C-alpha cells in the first residue's frame, strides 16, 4: 500500500489545505460536498483521518469544545510537510496522465 493516498484521502488533504490548513470534520465535509457535490459520511471521514494520521500525512489535535456538539471538542486536522509532498506528487501524476486528453475530456 505505501503512503500513496486514495481518492477520498486526496480530497480530504486538499480540503484541509483549502481551509488554510486547519479544518475539522464538518468543515472538511462541507468543503468536499460543496466543491465536488459528492456526499461523504461522517464515518468514512473519521476512518480516513485515522489512516492519514497513521501514514504521517496529517496531524490532528482537539480544540474548541462547543455546546452544539454536546460539549465535545473538534478534531482539527493539519496537513504535514510530507502530506503536502504527497498531494503534490499525486497532482503531478494525474496531470501527467491527463496530458493530451483535452480532446477526449472536453468533447
Amino acid at each position, binding site marked *: 500500500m505505501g503512503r500513496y493516498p486514495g481518492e477520498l484521502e486526496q480530497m480530504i488533504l486538499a480540503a484541509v489545505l483549502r481551509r488554510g490548513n486547519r479544518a*475539522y*470534520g*464538518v468543515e472538511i*465535509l462541507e468543503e468536499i460536498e460543496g466543491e465536488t457535490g459528492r456526499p461523504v*459520511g*461522517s*464515518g*468514512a*471521514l*473519521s*476512518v480516513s*483521518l*485515522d489512516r492519514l494520521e497513521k501514514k504521517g500525512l496529517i496531524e*490532528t*489535535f*482537539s480544540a474548541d*469544545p*462547543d*455546546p*452544539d*456538539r*454536546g*460539549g*465535545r*471538542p*473538534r*478534531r482539527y486536522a493539519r496537513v504535514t510537510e510530507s502530506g503536502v509532498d504527497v498531494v503534490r506528487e499525486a497532482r503531478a501524476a494525474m496531470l501527467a496522465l491527463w496530458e493530451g486528453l483535452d480532446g477526449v475530456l472536453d468533447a
Partner: protein
Amino acid sequence: MTKGRNGPPRLAVRLVKLFVPPGMTQDGLLGDLEERFHVRVSANPRRARWWYWREAAGAAGRHGSEAVREAVAHYREGDSVDGWMRDVKLAFRGILRRPAFATGVILTLALGMGANTAVFSVLHTVLLEPLPYDDPQGLVMADQLQTTGFRASVAMPNYQDWRERSRVFEAVSMEKPETVRVDGREGAEVLESRLVLDDFFQLLGRDPVVGRLPTPAELGPGAERVVVLTYGLWQSRFGSRDDVVGETLTIEGEPHRIVAVLPPAFAMDRDVTMYLPLGLRADDPAWSDRSTSFGGWVVARLRPGVSLDEARADMARVTEEMRSSLGADHPGAALFSMRDWYVGDVDTPLLFLMGGAALVLLVACANVASLLLGRAEERQGELALRTALGAGRRSLVRSLLADALVLATLGGLAGLALAAGALRLLSDAAAAMLPLAFAESVSIDGAAVLVMFATVLLVTVVVGVIPAVRGVKAARAGVSRSIGAGRGGARTRGILVGVEVALSVMLLVCTGLLVRSVANLQSIDTGFSSEGVLVQRMSVPRERYPDRLSVAQLQESVREEIARLPGVSSAAVSNLYPFSRTNWEMLFRDPERWPAEDAESVLFTAASPAYFDVFSIRLLRGRLFTDADRADTEPVVVIDETAAERAWPGEDPIGKIVAVDDVPEGDDFVPLWRTVIGVVSHVRNYELTEPSRIEAYVPIDQSYGCCRTVWLTVRTEGDPAALAPAVRRIVRDADPEMPVYRVDTMRAVVDREMAVHRAVQALFVVFGILALALGAVGVYGVVASLTRRRRQEIGLRVALGSTPAAAVGHVAGQGIRWVLAGLVVGIVASTLAGRTIESFLVGVRPWDPAVLVGASLALVLAASAALLLPARRAVREGPAEVLKEE
C-alpha cells in the same frame, strides 16, 4: 448538553461508542454528528433522527471493519490467525456435538430478528418515506369541513376562493377521481382516472418519462382533450413505446391525445391509470355551484418555512372572511399533511405491530441469555481443565468469543432469511391496509438489519463470554465448580425465566384481545345482510342515451332481466350501497325549522324498491316504496331510525314532510318536499365500528340527477360470484358498449373493511405463538439444567422413600416460583399494554377476564410441560444409576 427528544438518538450514540475507538477520534466524530444533527433537527426532527441513525450505523460499520482489518493484519504477523481459525472450527464442531442447544439459540435469534427486521422495514417504508414526490414535507391536502362536522369533497367556487385568498401556499391544485370508459379493440374497459387542475403536476415536482406535462393553463376550462398516462398503463397498453406521445386514446367516446407518461409509482392510489384536465368538466353545472361538492380534494404545497398549524390558521381566517359574506353555515377547510391523508389511518396498527415484534425480540434475547448462561455453567469444568493444562486466559476468552460469534452469525443469517419470508407476508398485510402503490415495494431495510445484528451480537457476546470468563477466574482461583457459581447462575436464569414469562403473557393477552376484537367485528349488527349479494357498477354511455328517460328505461330493463335469472331472489339499481365508498351527501331539511336552523347532512340513497330486499334492511314503521311510487306520483322518502329520532324525537315521523334533494326550477334549484312513508333500521355505510350519518332513501325514479352510473345489486340463493357472468351477459346484450365493472360479492366488500384488524390479529397470533414457544423453551432449559444439577438429590429422595411425584414436585417447585412471579408481573403489565391498544379494540376491554385467564392458562400449561419433562426423566432414571454415576 442536549438530551432527550431534541438530542441525537441515544441508542445510536451508544452504537458509535461501541465501535469507534475512544478519545479524539470518537469525540471528533460524535461532535461532528451532533453539530450536523442540530442543523437538521429544526427542519424535520423525524428525518434528522433517521439521518443520525444512518450515519451512526455507517460509522460503526466503517470503524468496525477497520478494526477487523487491522486485527487481521496484526495477527498475520504471528500465528494467532491460526488460533482464531482453530477456535472457529472448534465452535462449529461444538455446535454439531450439541445440536439441540445450538439450534435453540440460532432459532431463537432468528425468530426475534426476523420478525423485527420485517416489521421495521414495513414501518420505515410506510411511515417514514411513503411519498414519491419532491420535498414531500411541504405537501398538504384538504377537503371541506361542513358545519355539521362531516367532511365532504370541495365545491369548485370554494376551491377558487381558497386559492385566491389563502397566503400560505406556494401552489394549489385540485384532484378529482373519476372512473372513465376507455374503448379499445377488445371492447370497452372502465379505468380509474384523476382529473386535475392548475399546478397539480408542477407542485408534485416529478418529471415525465416521456413527453411534456400539461401547464396549469392547459388543465383549466377550455382545455384540449389530452391525457397523461401512468407508467403502468403505458407498459400494459402501449408496450412502453417511446413514440406513444401524439397517439390518441378513446375516453368516454372522445379521442384524447397522449401528451406524457409519468414515472413509476407516481399515483398514490395504485388503481389510477391516467390523468386528465379537470377543465374538461367546466360545462358541468356543478362547476359553478357552491352548494354541490364537486367530488374532488385540494392538493397544495406550503410556502417554505410555513408549518401545518400556520396553514390551518390561515385557512380558518379565509373561512371567517367567506362566512361574513356567505353565511355562518359556509363550510371550512380540513387540512392535512399529505402523509397523514394517505397513511394516517395505519400509524396505530403499525406501531402495535412494532411493539409486538419488539416484545418478541426481548423474549428471544432473554431466552438466548438464559441458554448461554446454562452453557457457560456447563463449560466451567472444561475451562478449568484447560486452565490446569496451561491454557492462557487470552486463548480461553478467544475460544469463548469464537463460540458466541459463530452462534450469533448463524442466528443472524437465519434471521435474515426469515425476515425475507416474513416480509412477503407483511407486505400483503400492508397492501391490505393501504391501497397505495408503495405497499408493494417494501424491501428489507439495511439499517434495520445492522441495528438488529449489532443488538444480537452484543447480547450473545455479553451473555456468552462474561459469565464464562468469570468461571475461568473462579477455576484459576482453585474454587470448586460445584460451589457458588452455580447457585448465582441459577438465580439469574430464574429471573430471566420470570422476565420471559412476563413478556410472553403481555403478548398473549394482546393477541387474545385482538382475536376477540375480530370475532366481535364479525358479529357486529351492521343493519344489513351481506350473504348472497353480488354488486357491480354499470355506466350508461352518454352518446346513445342522452336523456334521463332513456337512461332509466335501459337500467330498468337490465334490472328486470337480472331479476328473472334462476336463483335470483331480487335485483336493484341504486346510486350507492353500504361500503361502496360512494359519498352522496345531502341536507336533511325540515320545513318547520329550516332555514332558521342548520340542516343536518344526510346520506342520500336513490334506489329501486328491491334495494331493501337485496340487503335485508328491516322496516320498523310505515311502508317501503314500491313500483307504484313513480316520477309522476307524490314524492316520498324512507328514513332510517336515527334520522327519525334526531328530527322528531318521540313523535311519529310517518307523514312528516322533509327535503333531502333539490330539483331545478328556472335557473335555480329548490328543495323537493317529500312525505316520509317509512322508517328502516340504521345501516352502517362507512365504518363497521361506528354508526354512519343519518340516512334517507328515495325511489330512483323520483330522484333528479341520479344517475347515469349506478350499482346493480343482486341477491341470490346460491353463490353470488357464480352469478357474475350471467349478469355481465345481460348487460352486454342490452348494449355491447356498456361495461360492467367493480364486480364484487358483498362478503368480500365487508371482509376488506376488516382487513386491517385481521392483518394485525394474524401477525399478533404469530407473535403470540412465538412468545409461547420461546417462553416454553426458556423454562425447559432452566429446569433441565436445575434438575441435572440436582439429580443426585432427587435420586436420594426417591431412595429414601419419597414418592417420585413428591420428588419431582420439589424440583419443579423451584421453577414454578419464577414462572408464577413472571405471570403476576405479566398480567399487571398487560393491562397497561392493553390500554395502549384500546383504541383498536372492538367490544372488549383491555382487562377482559376471559383473555387474561386464557393467556395465563396457556402459559402455565406450556411452562408445566417444560417443567415436568426434565424432572420426570430424572425420576425415571432411578436412584441407583444416579448415585452410581457420581
